[in-house]
């Protein structure tokens, strides 16, 4: 009787030891799998970082791209200062944007061309570019350079070519060489005058004033739009219309 219970006790102990050994082995094995998983997870992070970094190219003063395309698209549309379109148009659309802003770049490439062709080229509305410098310190000299180009009737060419060659924000790409290359590609004829203008107190104050105006209008992002016309009661804010047709509809109701 006692011999049998001893055997059972030993058996139970052996089973317990085997279970513990099995669990320990299983844990060891799973922790090794966990280490491999950690390696894969870190590889996934590296891939995400590479994707994130690769989407910010541009900003190369020796390789200004798509200038001829921009100059061709804007050809024949009157420009006055930072205004694009009929200077006597009754409807005026103000675009508050930052030249370093990638969302503005996307808007400029995907939404504005349709509006420019349908409403600006026809003379129905005039589009006015206003600096709203929120990205960083390099936005101000870029904005001032655009205004200076506008004084020679090439403001919109400058803005659009800048967007198409935009670099990573505040990465140091907005150099004298880069701005000069954009100005030349935009067709600014008198570079010496453009240099004087863009560094003048008056132009720099204009950049600051339009940024203050955007804040006073309650805008929290770029690009943001406001418009005025016969159908509006003064300057009305639009925010960021989601599509070209939404902006066209707003122009229609303002006209």
């Amino acid at each position, binding site marked *: 009787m006692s011999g049998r219970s001893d055997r059972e006790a030993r058996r139970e102990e052996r089973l317990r030891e085997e279970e513990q050994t099995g*669990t*320990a082995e*299983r*844990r*060891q*094995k*799973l*922790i090794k*799998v*966990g280490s491999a*998983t*950690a390696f*894969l*997870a*870190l590889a*996934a*992070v590296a891939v*995400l*970082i590479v*994707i*994130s970094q690769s*989407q*910010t190219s541009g900003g190369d003063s020796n390789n200004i791209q798509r200038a001829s395309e921009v100059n061709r698209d804007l050809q024949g549309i009157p420009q006055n200062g930072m205004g694009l379109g009929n200077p006597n148009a009754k409807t005026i659309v103000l675009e508050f944007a*930052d030249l370093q*802003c*990638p*969302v503005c770049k996307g808007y400029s490439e995907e939404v504005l061309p349709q509006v420019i062709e349908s409403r600006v080229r026809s003379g129905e509305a005039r589009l006015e570019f206003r600096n709203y410098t*929120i*990205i*960083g310190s390099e936005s101000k000299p870029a904005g001032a350079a655009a205004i200076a180009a506008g004084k020679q009737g090439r403001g919109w060419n400058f803005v659009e070519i800048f967007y198409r060659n935009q670099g*990573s*924000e*505040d*990465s140091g790409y907005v150099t004298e060489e880069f701005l000069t290359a954009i100005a030349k590609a935009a067709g600014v004829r008198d570079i010496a005058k453009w240099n004087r203008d863009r560094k003048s107190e008056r132009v720099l104050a204009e950049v600051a004033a339009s940024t203050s105006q955007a804040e006073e209008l309650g805008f*929290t*992002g*770029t690009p*943001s739009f406001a418009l005025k016309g016969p159908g509006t009661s003064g300057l009305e804010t639009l*925010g*960021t219309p*989601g599509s070209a047709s939404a902006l066209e509809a707003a122009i229609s109701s303002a006209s």
Partner: protein
Amino acid sequence: MKPPAEGTLRGIATFLATFGIGVATYIVIADSGGGAPVCIAGGHGCQTVAESSYSHLAGVNVAVFGIAGYVLLLGCALLRGDGARMASFAISLVGFGFSLYLTYLELFTINAICQWCVVSAVLMTLLFATNTIRMLGYVGTNR
């Protein structure tokens, strides 16, 4: 040192992941309206970060990836077993690593801090710590 009970760790992870879903969803909603999250303490930090090219990955707001990560982590926190322990560890490691990178960008590249992004980074760090303790403490056990 004995780790906390797995139920406690799962409860903490559930709370953190739910909170994270709320924060990331707010960022996506604020961004989708063409605006930016509102910084509670004022300033333009959230706006500057939202306007940055780094706020999107392959055209998708990074907060959308954040929502997906937090939802997966919530699922792992609610499930038992080794699969959930390993998955929660791996997902939170990816989230933690990417949060570190985004915080680095805010500090040294964008030169602006968005409080909502900081909250999300802290949540992801806590989730990584919680899920690492859970994985190392309980993987391979039958509990």
